[in-house]
């Protein structure tokens, strides 16, 4: 059984957000919820400033606090290392969200995709209402929804349960890459089996010294970051007093 992990090459990442858009489309992620997200940081004092961009997603931790705390095993580990959620068992206690050290779990405070439930058209008798548009294309919640997401998780989650990144388990099952990795125009996301020494993931981890988010709390996260984007040059110096 493989153990999936992802390496994110920060030197390649240009911060375009294509991963987040692709994720949203693939997983029918509702407004206000982010399965794929980012941490940005501006350091220094003007004019000596830099902007840092770290793409984030569920770390599919080996010792996942979200899984440990879930009272009904709705949040659980798959054999391939993916941290998976089963909304049928979720009581909406939000303990996983409270417990996740990485802020990647969100709660559906209301039924998702509210906009598309609207029955009012902009021009009566002229334009279609959002609800009509959804019906016309034969979708359930949004006209652009991806039914393939429904293979392993309800294509659209309902109110009262949490949701988060699943490493596109439904695609991985079919031998496809997670959508974010596939969509990245800079090939900054490298996905694979960390147990296989010949996988690209393993090779990269042997080549560069990776860091992981909040490593010290012992969750053993499986998103690794390598390198850092920095085109800056500076004149060699020993500093001064």
């Amino acid at each position, binding site marked *: 059984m493989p153990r999936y992990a992802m390496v994110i090459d920060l030197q390649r990442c240009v911060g375009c957000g294509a991963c987040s858009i692709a994720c949203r489309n693939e997983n029918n992620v509702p407004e206000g919820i982010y399965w794929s997200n980012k941490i940005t940081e501006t350091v220094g004092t003007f004019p000596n400033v830099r902007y840092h961009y770290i793409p984030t997603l569920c770390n599919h931790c080996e010792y996942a606090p979200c899984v440990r705390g879930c009272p009904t095993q709705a949040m659980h580990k798959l054999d391939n290392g993916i941290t998976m959620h089963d909304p049928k068992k979720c009581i909406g206690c939000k303990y996983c969200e409270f417990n996740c050290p990485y802020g990647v779990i969100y709660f559906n405070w209301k039924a998702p995709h509210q906009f598309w439930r609207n029955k009012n058209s902009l021009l009566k008798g002229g334009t279609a209402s959002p609800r009509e548009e959804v019906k016309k294309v034969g979708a359930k919640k949004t006209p652009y929804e991806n039914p393939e997401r429904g293979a392993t998780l309800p294509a659209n989650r309902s109110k009262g349960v949490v949701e988060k990144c699943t490493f596109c388990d439904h695609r991985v099952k079919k031998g496809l890459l997670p959508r974010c990795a596939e969509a990245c125009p800079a090939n900054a996301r490298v996905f694979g089996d960390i147990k296989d020494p010949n996988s690209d993931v393993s090779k990269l981890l042997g080549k560069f010294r990776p860091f992981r988010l*909040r490593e010290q709390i012992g969750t053993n996260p499986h998103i690794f970051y390598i390198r850092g984007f920095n085109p800056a040059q500076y004149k060699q110096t020993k500093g001064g007093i």
Partner: protein
Amino acid sequence: MSAKKGLFSIWMAILGIIILIGLFTTYKLFTTGHVLFNTNDVVIWSLPLGVYIYLALASSGLTILAALPLVFGIGKYEPFAKRLVFLAIATLCGAFVSIGLELGNVFHMIYIMFSPNLSSPIWWMGAIYGLELIVLIVKFGLMHKGDWHSGFSKALATASFILALVAPLMIGSVFGITESRVTYFGPVMSIYCLLMAFMSGTALFLFYSLIVNKLNGNGVPTELYDEFALIFTYATAVVVGFTLLKFAIESATVVPEFLAYHQFEHAFGAIRGLHTEVLLGLFLPFVLLLFPAVRKSVGGKIAASALILTGTLFMHMEILLAGQSHPVGPKAEQYPEFINYFPSIWEFLVFLFALGIMLLLYSLGERFLNLTEAPE
């Protein structure tokens, strides 16, 4: 007598209205969702959860107090035992209402039984409180039938006592084992919850009994209440000591999360840097209780216990909110650095519903179940 009956009917009517409003709130929450709360993906747990912790801990405190006559055989407290057990049941029912309405999908609760996760403190908390409710109800039924001292009845009392000791530890560990929120103080939180449980349970018992006695004109020996007031003073002293220690650690540490926590405006304001709710809801009543004249007067006991009961709720809320005041990880992209929170009307209605259920049970029990009887 008829005037009393009239008052009782009015009281029941008020409670009936509260419960109807509560049922409407339940309907709204299930149909519209928890968007009705002033919560978000940073302040995840809010007033209803704080109320749950508050009531559940008070219920444990009442059960621990009931163990004095029922487990440790202190006979002179037997006239209080039935009421204590009943109050513990009613208070726990209020707690369950509050947490039930906090959950996103209460119908999936069957999976607590069919798909249990034994490493989850929430699972243990639910299981222990569920079991405690059953044990307390059976114990109360036996006492009501006059069976106080049979082996089975005693075993139930012991079981309820042990459950009441463990349950607050579990509530504490729900927070304490959260690696990402160190300001909850790890395992120390469990001890804090146990101490708070005993203090608030004692406060609730004193406050409630003295008010009921005043209304009914019951003549229970005042020395016994004085003894409870002394137990209450000791319980408060321990919480005061613990809170001071907590403050000392909080202010001395340079762990980044604690430094961020310092920046957080005290949820309920501060007087000279000290939390208002701690000063007025813990230190002040403690100082009052140190005066024997206050401790021995009915008014003094009522005032001190009322202050503690109010203060405890605010203290739970302060701790709950302070640990969730800033967004974790990438959520900082979406939310401001610190989050303001004030409960929505629906959250207040959940609180009111929980109180309504509790007060309805108290009133019916007081009226029909002869709560002051003791064995021959």
